[in-house]
């Protein structure tokens, strides 16, 4: 959100932007998880880039909005409307849920990635045949 000419952005306006960012970031997390499960690498990369921008701006805003010393020091005309505050908390809670699922998915998927990377790195691994006439067994092993 661009600053209008003149003084600093009023709190309620910042809070409104904060809410929008929370929702956008939540949407990006969903998008990234969808991209991961459909193996769409490009989509994932785009989403993560977007997430980085959004989360950076969110952190900054959250810091600005919460750095108020004590009750009564904020002029009543510049306080965040209680309805908006409630929406922010609800969106933040939802983002937290998504973030939890996202972090687990990243854990599992990155282990798969590591496994595959190890496999491809050691494609020249030894193959040995186990004696026996009915089944031919070959064993491949690698360090993961």
């Amino acid at each position, binding site marked *: 959100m661009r600053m209008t000419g003149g003084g600093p952005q009023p709190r309620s306006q910042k809070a409104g932007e904060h809410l929008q960012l929370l929702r956008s970031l939540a949407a990006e997390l969903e998008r990234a998880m969808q991209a991961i499960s459909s193996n769409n690498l490009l989509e994932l990369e785009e989403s993560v880039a977007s997430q980085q921008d959004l989360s950076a701006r969110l952190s900054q805003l959250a810091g600005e909005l919460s750095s108020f010393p004590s*009750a009564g020091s904020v002029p009543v005309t510049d306080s965040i409307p*209680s*309805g908006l*505050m*409630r*929406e922010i*908390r*609800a969106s933040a*809670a939802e983002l*937290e849920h998504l973030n939890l699922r996202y972090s687990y998915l990243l854990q599992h998927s990155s282990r798969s990635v590591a496994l595959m990377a190890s496999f491809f790195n050691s494609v020249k691994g030894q193959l040995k045949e186990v004696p026996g006439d009915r089944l031919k067994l070959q064993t491949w092993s690698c360090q993961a």
Partner: protein
Amino acid sequence: MRVNTNIVPNMVADLDQSQATLNTLLQEVATGKSVNAPSDNPTAAAQMVQNTLDAANVDRYTQNISSALSQVQQAGSVLSSVVTSLTQAVSLGTEGANGTNNNTSLSVLAQQVQSILSSVISQANTSVGGVYLFGGTASGAAPYAADASSPSGYTYNGNNDANSIVVGDSLNVQVNLPGSQVFSNSGNNVVGALSSLVTALQSGNSAQISSAATAVNSTIDFISQAQGFYSNAASQLNSQESYLQQETVTLTTQQNNLVGADMAKVAPELSQAETDNSAALAAAAKVLPATLLNYLAPPG
């Protein structure tokens, strides 16, 4: 051969998600709260525990202040009327000491002062909500009872203790003075002084009457100090009450932030969730084999 089952897990997952969303919103509408289970928002649920305790305590403190204030206010007005009575007794005594009275008028004056003493005693026995204001911490009987064997004709049956009432997390306020401190204090004995004035008037001795009237007069200052105690207690209680009102707002706001459901927001979300759920079920019905459909629970 590996079965390609990648369509089914997606669909079932979507279905589970839409059903879960629907269930959550239905619960919100029913209870008016957006957090039912701690799992919905563990941090909020944990914070609500302290909020619940604080809110109950603040509520109780407020009630305690309310009943304390009425005791304090009542005590203050008792003392005001006692001051009036004492002033009147002094002027009666002054009149009786001026040497112009005969036995009859002295006798009348004595009766008038006696009647003032009775009314002061009955004021000292005031109770509010079943609690005697000037009995110390004793309960049951009235603080002052008639006692022929006592020089003043009255005995104090209360005690010399005072309780402090809890009105804040670390705030206890004393709201009572025992009668033994106010009315029958050995240094400034209101009851004794009045009773002595009656005796003096009955005796007719001007010097005695004069000195008894002076003694009554000096208790007026003493009562004023007692009045100071009560008005000080009242202002402590009043400012604590204001603080608690702010606390109540803070706690209510916090509670709304933690668990309040914004009804205006929930209703449209609910209808969307119901649409989503129906759509997901319809889509699933087209794709999934019958056996799997039997497994899926119907909506609602």
